């Protein structure tokens, strides 16, 4: 179809497979790269490889980190009695940006979603329970979205943790209905955390 050299086509295909990059952008980026200073491209490639090799999930909380455990888990100034449960690692970034939370985190890695074949056993719930055994946790704050599946997941967690000596709260439902955390602005998130309520 096109008269482009094979390596360029391969590059366009790889870039186009990235989220948020359509065929036009992929082509533009690829053309830019093949005309750039080879050293700059080398650095870009290097940083991608390095980031991928070094950024891992924190073995304790599941957040992004280059060291084990992550900076947040290690930070002695953060309140160890509170753990905020989120769906994905990126939700930690949203909450950190809001600047209104100073406890620790725990990434579930999803939510109960029968339509996608995700059950409780596919989530990091056992790991959360073993953290309850090891760490001085007094409050679990559920910071999931407000859609049907998140609701059911919150209910599930509250019930499963009911026998533990821990308070389970859920952030206020000031979030736009049906959406996840990444749609909420910082002010809304701050209010949601302040307005959390016990769900027992």
């Amino acid at each position, binding site marked *: 179809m096109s008269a482009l050299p094979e390596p360029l086509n391969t590059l366009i295909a790889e870039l186009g497979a990235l989220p948020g990059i359509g065929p036009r952008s992929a082509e533009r980026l690829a053309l830019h790269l093949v005309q750039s200073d080879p050293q700059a491209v080398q650095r870009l490639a290097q940083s991608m490889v390095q980031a991928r090799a070094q950024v891992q999930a924190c073995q304790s909380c599941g957040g992004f980190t280059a060291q084990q455990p992550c900076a947040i888990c290690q930070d002695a100034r953060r309140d160890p009695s509170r753990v905020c449960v989120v769906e994905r690692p990126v939700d930690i970034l949203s909450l950190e940006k809001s600047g209104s939370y100073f406890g620790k985190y725990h990434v579930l890695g999803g939510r109960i979603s029968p339509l996608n074949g995700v059950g409780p056993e596919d989530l990091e719930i056992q790991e959360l329970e073993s953290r309850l055994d090891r760490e001085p946790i007094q409050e679990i704050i559920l910071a999931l979205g407000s859609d*049907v599946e998140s609701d*059911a997941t919150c209910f599930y967690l509250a019930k499963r943790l009911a026998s533990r000596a821990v308070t389970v709260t859920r952030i206020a439902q000031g979030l736009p*209905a049906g959406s996840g955390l990444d749609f909420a602005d910082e002010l809304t998130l701050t209010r949601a955390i302040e307005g959390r309520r016990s769900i027992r």
Partner: protein
Amino acid sequence: MHLAHLRLRDFRNYPRLDVDFIPGFHLLAGPNAQGKTNLLEAIYLLATLRSFRGVGGAQMIRHGQKGYFVGATLVGQTEQTVKMYWSIRERNLALNGQPVRKLTDYWGTVRAVVFCTEDLLLVKGPARTRRRFLDLLLAQTQPGYLPTLQRYAQALRSRNALLKQPAPDETALEGFTRELARLGAQIIQPRLDLLPRLAALAQSAYRRIAADTENLRLEYQPSVKQDMAVELAQARARERQYRLTLIGPHRDDLQLLLNDRPAGPFASEGQKRTVAIALKMAQAEYLTSLHGSPPILLIDDVMGELDRQRRAGLLPLLEEAHQARSQVFMTCTEQNWPRELGRALQGWQVHEGTLSPAA
């Protein structure tokens, strides 16, 4: 409110149409297969974002084209513009130049009630058709109803998927059950609240247009007696067997009774047609009473199929729409032209996807 301007591009058999409409009666005349019903379909689409023919967007794209465009100017207390583009890859809806984020922000911009041959399904069709009739009316009149309905559908799909699993996690199931019961109550209650008003309107409409003296009664038939949460728990054993959510507003029906007998299996064809029209009249009158102004009435062929007496019963409703500077769009072929509407009519000739004022 009235539709002052309609613009179509590649919609059904209309390559391009730009037409101004004044308030009042509009008679769309023309032989078969010229585009009369298609025009009503476009107006209905503006009101409900769906076709009354029960088809998806793809069927409405003119054959061989990529997408259709429907645009409108609406004049009431203020002037509003709607622009809608639909193709397989792209859907755009803009109100007054702003993209519409949530459908609930758009609902109510245009209100229309259609009278068409498909209405007969309200009587003959499955319960789903009648639930949809109630839901559409409630979505048009109560701001929170549509989001609740959508969320209920989501909870229901999730719960059914869970029930399909060989050994569903009971606690996870309970999570979805709670949500389903909570939302279910928020759907059943407005339906129950609507019913006395709607039933009274349908009953008197039937009396006005029917050739018989039978009595039309509407009865909501719930699958839940009192407490959906409790009854879902009781149905658990049966659910295990069927792997499906067996009770809830998605299983309810609206019973249509003629002299206490279900119209579907017992009424004559003529009676069924009259019941269907009575339901639509009730819908239009309910909307009128709620908003203080009548909706746009879209009447497809129905008038021509009715005898004189039944037509006379419909006239006051049309008259009212006319008085209130709303609009009535009515289609007919030359043969079934309802002569009693001879006055104050704006006549249009529909010919192969074009519209021209009738002489």
